[in-house]
């Protein structure tokens, strides 16, 4: 009779599975434990975490280290992943408009066209022509209205007003004529004077009709076909706005530039394929998937992607003591995305959605530094330590303890830096593959697409569901149900979308709807994990046929996510494949697969 512990040192958690191997070859499971991995996976720093977890598992079973006969350690093939992003379009406005500016309380209504003049010039301007008046923050709204009304009484034709402060309604209410008034123009001093401008404000609940139409702008400014084509992006960006200002400057226009985002070079056994990053994710992935095996991937110097690819090799070199030159990148995942970027030359600090490509890359090495860890662990515990098996194989063995599975079985480890797959066939053969792109890439996409600029917030949005605070006492959850509170909620939560984290409600500071945030979250998970699950299965399935794998179980940190397993189930059922979160030994859920497998593997010795 021996007491055996299976120890799995992961990138973030170290897991232990404890069992008693009876003389009649019967395995009696005694429990498990989990702790944060100490130090980088594969270094002797890990030993501290292992001992903590071992002691916890033993204590729960009423045993201690002296009762332990063998520790079986995972043969960790370290995998390091990283992500980068390249923007591939850029919108530059040279003085001509305020794209994306949509103040919440513009004043008045209608379309006004005229020459731009600052309000202080009203008293001295000549009577001919029509004018659009600029009111900067030095003017009190009442005085501004008086000044404009005075100009009306002197038969000056004023057709629109642009205001720096949030006072569109205040000024508009005091004018003798109804005019369109656009406010909250932060950089009003940048508005070019004496050019022709068009100001449009729609009725409450409506959106502008003229300035969101390229022919509307063409009519106002007498543009020819070529000029109309150039300003079409302005019209497009104003669609759905309640108000807009477009100014005609001599050289002004909107340029949508394609940014040179560099090239990646993918080297296979026999050839090198180079792909321009700005060709987009689909083209990049077609190139990647065209290879049987990738020998290495390199990026262009001084591009975001090039630097990331270089960096990920250097991290692995540091870990294994090899030289960075000998490290190989085996896989890359590219995802198309759109991110809000502050527009250059903007007058109100507005942003524009630019196309970008998010990229994840992954390196793995065959060198196994676990021997040093094993030696130190043995020394510290006095227990015999054996490096027992390749992670992927152990994960498959452990996954088999999930009720309802049969062989062939695919185990998908959805981690933070990589997506790893192992297929265990009836004849005992195990095929494995490691793919780039996992939890970290999902967080990056959420962060970028929502313009959060804060990784922590993106992480919370990824992990937890949302709710909208509807009043001081109630919130409406994503599924439509309402939750009430006994005492009023904090003011900073009022009318906000919040993330229901395990530590309380976290308000999202951006003015985004719940539906938009939830959609971005789901899309990011699909773009990364569904794509990788399908990629992994196609590579490892018998003859590349997905339908030949009846069961897929998901393990790893991202398998604990509240919606990823469901998204996977929906997608894979189309292929008649059953997929879901693993349930190791009926009690652990997706955790402890490798540790359990390590214990199980002792039976065959």
């Amino acid at each position: 009779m021996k007491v055996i512990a299976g120890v799995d040192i992961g990138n973030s958690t170290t897991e232990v599975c404890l069992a008693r191997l009876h003389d009649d070859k019967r395995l009696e499971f005694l429990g498990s434990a989990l702790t944060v991995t100490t130090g980088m996976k594969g270094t002797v720093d890990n030993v501290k975490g292992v001992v903590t977890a071992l002691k916890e598992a033993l204590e729960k079973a009423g045993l201690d280290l002296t009762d332990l006969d063998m520790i079986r350690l995972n043969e960790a093939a370290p995998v390091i992943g990283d992500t980068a992003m390249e923007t591939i379009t850029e919108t530059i406005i040279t003085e001509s408009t305020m794209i994306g500016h949509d103040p919440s309380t513009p004043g008045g209504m209608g379309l006004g066209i005229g020459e731009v003049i600052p309000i202080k010039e009203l008293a001295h301007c000549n009577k001919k022509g029509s004018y659009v008046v600029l009111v900067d923050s030095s003017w009190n709204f009442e005085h501004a209205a008086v000044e404009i009304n005075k100009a009306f009484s002197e038969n000056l034709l004023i057709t629109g007003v642009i205001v720096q402060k949030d006072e569109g309604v205040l000024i508009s209410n005091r004018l003798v004529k109804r005019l369109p008034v656009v406010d909250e123009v932060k950089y009003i001093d940048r508005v070019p004077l004496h050019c022709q401008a068009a100001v449009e404000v729609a009725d409450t609940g409506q959106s502008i009709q003229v300035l969101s139409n390229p022919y509307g702008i063409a009519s106002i400014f007498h543009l020819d076909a070529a000029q109309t084509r150039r300003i079409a992006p302005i019209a497009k960006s104003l669609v759905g706005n309640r108000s807009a200002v477009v100014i005609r400057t001599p050289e002004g226009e909107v340029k949508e530039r394609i940014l040179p985002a560099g090239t990646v070079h993918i080297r296979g056994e026999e050839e090198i394929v180079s792909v321009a990053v700005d060709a987009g994710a689909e083209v990049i992935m077609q190139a990647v998937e065209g290879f049987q095996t990738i020998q290495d991937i390199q990026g262009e110097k001084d591009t975001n992607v090039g630097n990331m690819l270089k960096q990920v090799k250097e991290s692995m070199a540091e870990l294994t003591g090899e030289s960075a030159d000998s490290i190989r990148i085996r896989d890359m995942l590219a995802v198309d995305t759109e991110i809000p970027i502050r527009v250059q030359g903007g007058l109100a600090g507005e942003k524009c959605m630019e196309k970008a490509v998010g990229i994840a890359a992954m390196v793995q090495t065959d060198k196994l530094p676990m021997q040093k860890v094993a030696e130190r662990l043995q020394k510290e515990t006095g227990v015999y330590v054996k490096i027992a098996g390749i992670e992927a194989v152990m994960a498959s063995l452990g996954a088999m303890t999930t009720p309802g599975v049969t062989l062939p079985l695919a185990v998908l480890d959805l981690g933070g830096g990589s997506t790893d797959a192992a297929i265990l066939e009836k004849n005992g053969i195990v095929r494995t593959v490691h793919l780039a792109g996992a939890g970290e890439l999902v967080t990056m996409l959420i962060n970028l697409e929502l313009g959060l600029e804060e990784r922590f917030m993106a992480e919370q949005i990824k992990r937890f569901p949302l709710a909208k605070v509807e009043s001081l006492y109630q919130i409406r959850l994503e599924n439509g149900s309402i939750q009430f509170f006994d005492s009023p909620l904090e003011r900073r939560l009022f009318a906000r979308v919040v993330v229901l984290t395990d530590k309380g409600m976290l308000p999202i500071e951006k003015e985004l709807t719940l539906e938009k945030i939830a959609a971005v979250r789901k899309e990011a998970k699909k773009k990364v994990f569904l794509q990788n699950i399908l990629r992994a299965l196609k590579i490892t399935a018998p003859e590349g046929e997905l339908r030949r794998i009846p069961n897929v179980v998901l393990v790893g940190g991202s398998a604990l996510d509240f919606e990823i397993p469901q998204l996977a189930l929906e997608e894979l059922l189309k292929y008649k494949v059953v997929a879901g979160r693993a349930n190791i030994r009926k009690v652990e859920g997706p955790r402890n697969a490798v540790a359990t497998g390590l214990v199980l593997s002792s039976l065959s010795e």
Partner: protein
Amino acid sequence: MPLLQDSYCPPFQNRGGRMEMKKPAIEICIHQGVEALLCEVLAGIEEEGVPFQVTEIQETSAAALARKGAEQSLLQVGIGIYRDQVCVQYRGAIAQKPLFEYIGQEDTFLRNLGSNAARIVKKKTFKGL
């Protein structure tokens, strides 16, 4: 102090001896208030486009005035101005301390206070927090 029940508030009000239908509005109750403060608050509400009504009431604290206003208001929001203090109350949260309080901060604070009182009604996020 227990939360006041949503007691029946007749939709009529007595305006200079005549009974007339109350319109939905933020009720601003003022006593010995400073004119300049009232103007800033009203500007904030007006910019948000929510109707308001100003009444003189004999109370000696901004909080009490605000509470009266919230009880009377069909929109459930009241603002109290007593001398140089301003409070915003919401009928559903009267037992707690006022939602917003002005005790001598700068003008923009007061303008925001008006805007925020309107935003309670509009269910929009608060400014300047």
